[in-house]
């Protein structure tokens, strides 16, 4: 039973991270029908942003209550800047190009970001701080301490933190999209950009907002990832990105609630499958494969996802 609850926790935490990243995918796709292949790298950049702040700012030994917010700021700045630059210079010029172009650009961007982090993160003084960041870089474990006893099981502080932070972010986003003026404008643009433009909505600004929000959430996820798993490297974005995309599609691409649902679902499936699948097909080696299997199944059998609607092809 302990194993079950332990793995349940792990699944939920993993799901929370996937959900945060998935939101970025879903928002951008909902508005401009672009699979932002490089979004996983935005997540990775956020993690490294937080790590950089910690290292450059020599925050070793500073109290968590000061260090963490600073790291968060660092993460968000890194992710958001990258995302905005990408949107402005890589994606926007290709707004009207055939669909192949932005997809390939996104692949190129993903590779560029991975490599930039690997080769070029500098430190004042001219030395490469990350020494080839393909090797996992240790991430400060700022949230530790005893697990909190919940009676039937106990939950570690870091797990609790992640779940709470993620839920707060998701709720905030949903409120924003449903209640605020900009949020409603985003929904309008997602449904029909041309009409939205006619209604006076600055579509470009909305698109930028979508990228911005997605990046911010991914940054939070990056920071959480580092705190939880203890290390980061330049490749975490690729796999996490694909899985988060799976989650977004699973829930229904373009649907914010769907992204959340899909994220948690995928996290649980992945954790439970590796623990409980019988024989040789359980275990960590097949971990990633399960996510891909889910991806394939969803895209083939129910591409509109759990919460999405079928889009009719009007001739």
């Amino acid at each position, binding site marked *: 039973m302990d194993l079950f609850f332990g793995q349940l926790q792990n699944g939920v935490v993993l799901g929370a991270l996937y959900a945060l990243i998935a939101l970025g995918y879903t928002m951008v796709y909902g508005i401009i029908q672009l699979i932002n292949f490089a979004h996983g790298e935005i997540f990775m950049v956020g993690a490294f942003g937080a790590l950089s702040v910690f290292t450059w700012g020599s925050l070793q030994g500073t109290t968590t209550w000061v260090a963490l917010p600073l790291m968060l700021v660092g993460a968000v700045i890194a992710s958001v800047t990258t995302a905005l630059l990408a949107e402005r210079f890589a994606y926007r010029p290709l707004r009207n190009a*055939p669909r192949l172009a*932005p997809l390939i650009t996104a692949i*190129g961007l993903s*590779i560029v970001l991975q490599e930039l982090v690997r080769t070029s993160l500098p430190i004042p003084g001219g030395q490469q701080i990350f020494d080839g960041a393909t090797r996992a870089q240790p991430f400060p474990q700022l949230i530790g301490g005893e697990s909190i006893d919940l009676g039937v099981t106990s939950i570690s502080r870091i797990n609790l933190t992640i779940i709470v932070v993620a839920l707060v972010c998701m709720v905030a986003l949903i409120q924003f999209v449903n209640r605020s003026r900009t949020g409603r404008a985003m929904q309008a643009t997602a449904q029909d950009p041309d009409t939205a433009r006619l209604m006076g909505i600055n579509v470009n600004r909305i698109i930028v907002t979508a990228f911005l929000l997605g990046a911010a959430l991914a940054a939070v996820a990056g920071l959480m990832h580092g705190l939880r798993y203890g290390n980061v490297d330049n490749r975490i974005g690729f796999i996490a990105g694909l899985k988060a995309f799976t989650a977004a599609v699973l829930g229904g691409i373009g649907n914010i609630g769907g992204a959340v649902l899909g994220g948690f679902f995928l996290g649980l499936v992945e954790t439970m499958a590796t623990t409980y699948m019988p024989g*040789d097909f359980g275990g960590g080696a*097949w971990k*990633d494969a399960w996510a891909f299997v889910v991806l*394939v199944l969803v895209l083939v059998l129910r591409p509109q996802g759990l919460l999405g609607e079928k889009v009719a092809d009007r001739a």
Partner: protein
Amino acid sequence: MTPEMTRVERLDDMIAARVGGRGWLVAVLGAALVAISALLPWTYTDAYPENLTVYFYPAGPQLYVLALSVVALVLLVGERVDVLGRLVRLAVPHGTGGTVRALALGSFLISVGVVLRMIVLLGGSVNVDPGGYLAVVGALLLMIGSRVLPSDDPLPLRAKLPAAVEIAIVGVSMLVMLVLVVRGLALDEQESFSAFAVFAGFLVFAAARAGLIGWVSQLSSRHYGVTVAAAFVVAALFPFTQGGANRYLNVMANVLIFAIVAIGLNIVIGLAGLLDLGYIAFLGVGAYTGALLSGSQFSTVDWVPPFPVVLALGALAAALFGVIIGIPSIRTRGDYLAIVTLGFGEIFRITVNNLGGTGSGPDITNGPNGIPDIPALEFFGWNLGEDLNIFGFELGFFANYYFIELVLLAFVVLVFVRANNSRIGRAWVAIREDETAAAAMGINTFRLKVSAFVLGASLAGLAGVIKAHLSTSVEPTQFQFLESAFLVAAIVLGGMGTVTGVLLGATILRLLPEKLRFIDEYRLLIFGAALILVMRFRPEGLVPSARRAREFHEEEITERLAREQVAGSPVTGSRGGQP
């Protein structure tokens, strides 16, 4: 100047205003200076590769700028002299403006590059002799002066020459290409190679601006069959230029495998329009089939059938996987197809990585270590692991693989071309253009898409079998997503839907990293950046099919036409103050 002009046009206007009619003089002066500088030393030390220290003994980059500037000089002067003028016009159908500008830019980049490299390598500008600086100045003048020359002015179709002459011209162009490639391969130091690469590149670019490339293309399409045969003959000459060394034969053998696979993928992407990001898995299926049936001690299968059987099995296995992966994937829509195939590709990699008997699955593929120690191919008594001796030439044993791959390449290109020019090929294009309309024409779009997918898969399977023997080992890491991305890039950069373009893209992508080892660290970074830039500025690739170029630039063309209508000026015509 109007606000709608591009930045380059505004710069040209500024130059024209200052330099005016003296542009020609400035250009000639510049070219002359460059030529002279080539005969002067550029440095006094031989620490810089290729001896650039002797008077009247140009070498390496000096030779290159000498060649470029002399050609520019001849074109510039020849134009103004009556008799020569007609000859120049013959040789340079599009007018000298664009050609000279290309030559100028090439000289400039080479001279500046060399001088800067000298400063860095030798530690200080004092190490650069006046010759080097003169080259830079001269090239700069040439560039400025040439900007006021009239623009390209395409002449109507040229008269036909006798067939034999036309074929000879095509053959000569191919031999020139071969020479350039062989020379380029032979240069080992990064400075020499880079200078040569820029030289060769701009030579080709200048020829393109001159209209020569277009002309040769026309000739080759007029004598298509002969051209293709000639291309293979010239390619087969390559091993004979290596003097028995194996190193570059190995490289080129790998390039050929890559090219074969790229053409196979081109059927899927370029013809049927299916973006497959997991194509490398099919190469992997073929490779593992070949490896398992090769008799290697690490193979988990004891059977070692003759080579033709292995080939057939490899293609069959890959085709089977093509059906299994294709049927569900093709049911998905557009972008999703790319992601699904990516997913399948990764599932393949993870599976072969885990089927190693060490607790995560039965031992079929020997897990992460893969299957090393694959013996050389052997069939009909021919052992591909032994050196050859043909017509008295010693050929390293990789030449065997090279030749067999040339045959396979010929086969794959044949399949591509014939599939393209057929009822099925037309149906594929129709599906790509407007799937709904295609279905309304009676085309079973699903079945046709799957057939493209499976055909592409089986061709990759064939290549995989040979690759297993060429690389002598097969491992899961050889089949990661990045490899698929490289293949897609080769097609996109080279030009989708055309054989020449894809071959060019594949060669460049596979060959350059070999030679530019000094940027090995940044290899992937440059690759990613190149993808972004190409999709931004030239999405139809280097050698676009006419169709694709139109598809991508539709907006631009419409915009430009609209602009010109508003401005009231004709669509064609020169700029820069010339009538």
